């Protein structure tokens, strides 16, 4: 390997890990060919510009990668919404509403046009949302059933338990509906196009 290729390999480390694992060897090999065909000066001027443009872009895409960003932001939004409901039921209306508004802000940011334009395509989105919605729906039904059973056999209900069951019901029910609506609006997987298209 030439010293130019070695230097380029060191710079390729700036790309996201998954992209690097998939393409680093090919990129370095192609750069080596480029140096041989165009000479070092032209190869470096082309490649440094390429690095300056693509490294931040792929880093951002990696950060917005559907599984990672959607999961992290969804968990954050759900936790904030649950805390908001609990706050309304136990503390006061104002802090609860504030938390719910922050949760809504997180969801709006996550679903924004800008976020969607940066996010790489996710062919499994529909399947993933259906699976997540089903899990939330099951949790909602089970927790509500448990609450009804407990309510029918015990009269010893204290505020904390009511709050927890209510929060669980609202969060899982809203989450399931959001997931199912998202799944309906997502295109089906493009992984296996029909023959002869």
């Amino acid at each position, binding site marked *: 390997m030439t010293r130019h290729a070695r230097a380029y390999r060191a710079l390729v480390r700036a790309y996201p890990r998954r992209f690097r694992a998939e393409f680093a060897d090919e990129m370095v090999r192609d750069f080596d*060919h480029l140096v041989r065909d165009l000479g070092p000066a032209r190869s470096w001027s082309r490649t440094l510009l390429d690095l300056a443009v693509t490294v931040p872009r792929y880093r951002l895409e990696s950060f917005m990668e559907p599984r990672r960003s959607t999961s992290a932001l969804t968990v954050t939004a759900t936790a904030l919404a649950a805390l908001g409901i609990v706050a309304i039921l136990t503390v006061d209306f104002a802090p609860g509403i504030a938390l719910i508004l922050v949760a809504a802000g997180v969801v709006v940011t996550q679903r924004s046009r800008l976020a969607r334009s940066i996010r790489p395509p996710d062919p499994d989105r529909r399947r993933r949302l259906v699976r997540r919605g089903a899990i939330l729906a099951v949790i909602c039904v089970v927790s509500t059933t448990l609450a009804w059973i407990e309510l029918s056999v015990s009269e010893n209900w204290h505020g904390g338990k009511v709050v927890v069951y209510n929060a669980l019901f609202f969060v899982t029910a809203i989450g399931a509906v959001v997931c199912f609506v998202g799944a309906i609006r997502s295109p089906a997987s493009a992984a296996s196009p029909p023959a002869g*298209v």
Partner: protein
Amino acid sequence: MENPAHDPTRFLPLPQAQYHVLVALTAGEMHGYAVMQQVEALSDGVVRMGPGTLYGTLKRLVDTGLAEETEERPAEGDDARRRYYRLTGLGRAVCIAESDRLADLATRSRANLRIGTA
């Protein structure tokens, strides 16, 4: 009912880099460096891709089902370590749709410019 994911117009307008790579792959399956050279040749040297843009674009095309990696090696003596790519049926349909769209745009543009200069 036809799957909307397979509707070529859903991909339009294609980003410039993706369109150039698709056009390069219409010549047949090829490895990354050959795609890079083909893109430069087809654009008369106007579009010059670096390795980062090229493989990011190829990854995007593969992820969206417009191109695919192939195990076969088209020519004897090709480097076995190289990864080869080719168009899928959907990729071909999208390339045709984007070419038609651009041709239509060029026709309208020329017509308007002629009217403007008349």
